[in-house]
């Protein structure tokens, strides 16, 4: 009798478990990305990108008529993020499912006027939403327009943005793939401010929403990275681009592979030095009661291209190139520090380094760090670059052509 009871109990446990709050896949709307902006009335507008599973698969096989777009975009307003998200249910036929949301797009205007501090709590707190979700800023374009633009190759625009960001960070190094956790950690730290990558939509915003846009070789509009947003006290105060942006990524030790262009004598952009791996250390020391920051970079790499006839069998030439690369990297880093100082925003966490070195001194420096101490901070940059190899060839064929012989 007891055994039978036990068996029934076991059967119940096996068959009934998981039924309590079951969610059928056909009842879920997979939200790929979330855009947040503010309208004229001061309400938040949440724009979500919902995946159309059938159309994604169709598009990848290339068959069928493929009329439908791979994602559908909906917007709703609310006084806070959760309210906007709940109001979206009036428009979407399924339960919104945020566990696979990989991207949050914050509107530039919202970030400038109100700051990003108020919108992040919902994403930090919700168990479905992950704090490893990537955050970007819509630069010079409405967050909603970025969400609505269709993209070729990677059919779901949110994953296109994330992949672009990931690969450009790895191979070019002017942008940062930051997630919600990193942004919040920077916001809560007294000696660090966040840096968030901006994305721009180049082309016709209205055409970008239509399927015709991606049925041509050149889409009507392309979503492209555009600068790093500098924050201060949670508000966006400006952008850094180009070399300074790359210098910032160097300081944050996030460069994986990048290209450093070196001049050779009179020839501009003569040698391309490809960084393969690097390590950057930030250390602080106190001198006469004032902190001094040292940024030490150690980079290793190969020669990618030379357009001058130089002899790459000669180790001395390697040394020359190394020197050139060191100067170039140093220039980028110094430019980044310069721009951050102009914005009076310690985006590199130099303050954190001081705090870790000397908590007592930090207590007195903390209050005026960004406005007074950081802009006057002495930053020493030391770069060690090593050229390891020169690819498949030693001398360039240029040194054997008629004119150079």
């Amino acid at each position, binding site marked *: 009798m007891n055994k039978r009871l036990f068996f029934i109990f076991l059967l119940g446990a096996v068959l009934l478990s998981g039924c309590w709050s079951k969610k059928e896949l056909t009842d879920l709307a997979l939200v790929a990305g979330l855009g947040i902006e503010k309208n004229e009335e001061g309400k938040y507008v949440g724009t979500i990108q919902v995946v159309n599973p059938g159309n994604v698969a169709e598009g990848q096989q290339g068959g069928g008529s493929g009329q439908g777009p791979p994602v559908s975009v909906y917007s709703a307003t609310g006084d806070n993020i959760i309210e906007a998200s709940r109001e979206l249910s009036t428009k979407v036929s399924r339960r919104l499912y945020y566990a696979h949301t990989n991207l949050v797009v914050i509107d530039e205007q919202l970030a400038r006027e109100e700051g990003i501090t108020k919108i992040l709590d919902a994403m930090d707190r919700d168990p479905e939403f992950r704090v490893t979700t990537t955050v970007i800023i819509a630069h010079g374009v409405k967050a909603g327009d970025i969400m609505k633009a269709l993209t070729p190759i990677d059919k779901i625009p949110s994953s296109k943005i994330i992949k672009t960001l990931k690969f450009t960070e790895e191979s070019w190094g002017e942008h940062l793939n930051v997630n919600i*956790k990193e942004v919040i950690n920077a916001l809560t730290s007294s000696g660090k401010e966040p840096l968030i990558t901006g994305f721009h939509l180049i082309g016709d915003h209205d055409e970008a929403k239509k399927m015709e846009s991606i049925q041509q070789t050149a889409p009507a509009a392309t979503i492209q990275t555009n600068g790093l947003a500098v924050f201060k006290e949670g508000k966006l105060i400006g952008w850094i681009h180009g070399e300074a942006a790359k210098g910032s990524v160097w300081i944050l030790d996030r460069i994986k592979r990048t290209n450093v262009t070196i001049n050779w004598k009179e020839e501009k952009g003569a040698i391309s030095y490809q960084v393969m791996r690097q390590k950057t250390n930030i250390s602080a020391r106190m001198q006469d009661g004032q902190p001094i920051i040292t940024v030490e970079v150690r980079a290793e790499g190969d020669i990618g291209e030379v357009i001058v006839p130089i002899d790459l069998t000669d180790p001395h030439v390697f040394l020359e190139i190394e020197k050139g690369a060191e100067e170039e990297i140093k220039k980028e880093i110094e430019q980044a520090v310069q721009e951050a100082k102009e914005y009076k925003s310690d985006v590199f966490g130099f303050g954190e380094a001081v705090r870790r070195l000397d908590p007592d001194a930090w207590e007195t420096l903390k209050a005026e760090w960004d406005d007074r101490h950081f802009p006057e901070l002495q930053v020493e940059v030391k770069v060690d670059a090593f050229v390891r190899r020169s690819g498949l060839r030693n001398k360039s064929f240029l040194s054997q052509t008629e004119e150079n012989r």
Partner: protein
Amino acid sequence: MEKAKISAYQLFVLVLLFELGSALILPLAIGAKQDAWLAILLGMIGGGGIFLMYDRLFRFYPDILPTEYVQKIIGKTLGRILAFFYLLYFAYIAARIMRDFGVMLVTFAYPDTPLFIINALLVIVVVYTVHKGVEVLARSGELLFVLIVVVAVAGFILVLVSGLIDPSNLKPVLEERISSVLKVTLTETLYFPFGETVVFAMLLPYLNHPFKARKIGLLAIGLSGVILASVMAINISVLGVSLTSRSQFPLLTTIQMIQVAEFLERLDIFFMLTLVVAGFFKISILLYAVVTGTANLFQIENPSRLAYPIGLVILILSVTIASNFAEHLQEGLQLVPVFLHIPFQIVIPLFLLTLAFLKTKRKQGQ
């Protein structure tokens, strides 16, 4: 007291699982910020000292349960009242642990399921095990300990491989002075989880080699302290102090950060289920202590039958002790140490030990 014996290794596993129990999931000693690991290690040393006290008492009366020897030390009536209060204390702690785990499950995995149902399912398993007796409890501990070790090692490797650990988050050491670390030690880690080994006074008489109790207990407390300190250090180095202190369950938040090779991610559910195993042992040990103690106190012949009613009491307690999780934590951090842990873990045992010591001395004198 049932006729059962547990081996030294089984006791070791039980103490270890008991210590890890709910301490592993909560932001333990986060009041000491990045020095939480230090506060835990100091708590461990203090906890070892407290355990020596319980062990000394056990050596005076190696064959009988504490519920019986308090009667010998301070007299029948008073001893019975005190023993009864101890049973209430164990039941209350069991309910608290159950609440911790129930809330964790609801928050992370079952948002639509009522807390009562989750706790009820847990209590069914606990009651079943306790009903089967201490040997079954010890043997299942041996078995499941292997699973926990495997998952813990896997988790550690995954966190390491993900490159999440940033040791600079642990610096500067002693930013807030040693006094604040000591404060956290003396108000939190000393009692939770280390002082809670007082419940093992109820289990020590089952040990097959009583003289091993001291070594085994200290070893298990030491290992659990090192594990808890390193887990908290990893949490802080992965999440940073601010996120760790904001997290209700920092270990699971750390696990959520794991992203290896594009597909090994969102593993928190696996780890959550393993953590429940540790919680199951902590609750079972406490319930067993209440059951066997009650049987001993009221001279009930078949103690295992008590598992059902007392399990039901703990289940109801676990849902009703606080109206929300914030209240539950506040009570646990501010009221329970002062009004329950200090008297039951330190003051009363110390008092009993002194009396027992004087008693035996007088006997020897005669």
